[in-house]
C-alpha cells in the first residue's frame, strides 16, 4: 500500500473525523513506536530505505570523517553503513561513549573495521575510514520516519504482537476527539 492509500484507508475507517495531516502525524508516532520494538527484535531490514552516494566529509579541525544523514531516522535507525564499491571495510556501529573510550586506548584496533557512532543527524567515523572510501561516498540502510517516505511510496506494513500498523493507528485515534472538518459545500 502506498502511504497515501494508508492515510485514506484510515480516514475512511474513522469516518473522516480528522484532517489528513493529523492522521499522517499520528501514523508517524505509531510507526516510531513499532520501529522501536522491531529494532529490539532485530527485525528491521525489511522496513529500511537504502540511500546511496552519501557524502563523507573530513572535518579539518577534528581530522575526523563524518556524514550527514540523508533522511530523518527513528531512534537507532542507522541500520547499516557500507562502502559504495569496496566491501573490504566493515562498518560497525558503537555507542558514542565506547567510541570515545576506544580512541583513548594505547592499543588500537587496526583491522578492516570502521567504527562509527550516530549523533542526532550526523554519523562520525573512526580513523580507519580511508580517503578512498570517503571520496566515493557511502551507502546507508536507514529506518526513517514514516513521513520521510514519498507519499506515493509503497510502505512495508509492520505487524507487531499480532497488531497491524493500520489497526494500531486507528486504536490510537479512536480516543482522540474529532477535529472539525467542515466542507462548506456539503451540508448534511
Amino acid at each position, binding site marked *: 500500500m502506498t502511504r*497515501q492509500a494508508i492515510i485514506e484507508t484510515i480516514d475512511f475507517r474513522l469516518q473522516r473525523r480528522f484532517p*489528513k*495531516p*493529523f492522521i499522517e*502525524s499520528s501514523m508517524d508516532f505509531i510507526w516510531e513506536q513499532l520501529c522501536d520494538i522491531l529494532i529490539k527484535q532485530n527485525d528491521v531490514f525489511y522496513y529500511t530505505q537504502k540511500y546511496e552516494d552519501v557524502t563523507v566529509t573530513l572535518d579539518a579541525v577534528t581530522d575526523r570523517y563524518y556524514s550527514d544523514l540523508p533522511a530523518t531516522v527513528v531512534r537507532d535507525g542507522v541500520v547499516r553503513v557500507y562502502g559504495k564499491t569496496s566491501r573490504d571495510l566493515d562498518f560497525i556501529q558503537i555507542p558514542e561513549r565506547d567510541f570515545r573510550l576506544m580512541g583513548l586506548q594505547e592499543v588500537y584496533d587496526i583491522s578492516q573495521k570502521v567504527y562509527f557512532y550516530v549523533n542526532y543527524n550526523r554519523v562520525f567515523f573512526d580513523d580507519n575510514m580511508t580517503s578512498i572510501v570517503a571520496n566515493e561516498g557511502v551507502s546507508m540502510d536507514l529506518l526513517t520516519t514514516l513521513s520521510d517516505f514519498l507519499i506515493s511510496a509503497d510502505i512495508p506494513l509492520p505487524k507487531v504482537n499480532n497488531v497491524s500498523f493500520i489497526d494500531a493507528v486507528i486504536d490510537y485515534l479512536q480516543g482522540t476527539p474529532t477535529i472539525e472538518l*467542515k466542507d*462548506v459545500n456539503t451540508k448534511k
Partner: protein
Amino acid sequence: MFNNGTIYDIINTLTRKDSSGDVFSPEEMTNMLVLTQHEKDNADFKQFEEHQIITDALRSLDSSSTITLTAGVGSLPIDYWHIKSGGVIVNSYSADLVTDKEWRERFYSHALLPKTWCPMARIVGTNIQVYPTHTSCLFEYLKKPTDPFFDYYYNADDNIVYLVPGTSHVLTAGETYIDKDDGTVRSSGYIITSGENKSVELHFYENDRVDVLYRILQKLGVTLQHEIAVQYGIQGETKEQTK
C-alpha cells in the same frame, strides 16, 4: 421539440380558456421564463446541497476551469455560481474546501498544516485561495444559468412565431420583426440572422421544461395537474412531428 415556443403556445391556449381571457404577451413570457428558471434552479440546488449529486436538471450547468494562481490566489470564473463538493484540484490532489475558521486553524498548526498531497482551499470574495501554493488549480463548479429569452416575429396573420435559438429567418410578405435591442421594425425581405435572433432556451432538458410550464401556469392562476401538463406537452410534440 419542447422549447420556449411550445411552452408559450400551451400557456396561451390554456389561459385563453381561463375566464379572465387575458393573452399572455411574449415580453411577459420572457419575464416568466427568467423568474421560473431561477426558482427551479434554486430548488434544484437545494437538493444538490443535501445530496451532492448533480441531477440532470443541473447537468447543463456543470462546468470546470483551470485557474491561474499567483501566490496561491486566483480569480473565480466570471460565470461562477456555486462550487461542487471536492471541486478544487491542486497538482492532481483534491483540496479540502474549508471555512475561514478552519483555514486559520490549519494554517497556524503543525499537526494540521496541509501538504502538497492534501491541500486546502477557500473562497474569499471573488477569489479562490489555495495552500500549499501552486501555479494553477482545476476548479469544478456550477455556472450561472443564462437567462432565457423569447424572441419572435409576427407572421402574415399577426400570429407570434417563436425564433428557435441559432436559426435565421427571411421575412416574407406580411411578416414583421421588431429588433429587441433598438426597436427597429423589419419587414418583408429582411433576414433575421442567427446572431440577431436573441432567443435563449431554458437550460433544462426537455423533460424538465414541462416543470417550468407547470410553474408558470400556477403563477398565472391556472390550476392544472402535473400529469395533464405533461400530457399536453407530449401531444403538442407529437402534433409537431407529424406536420
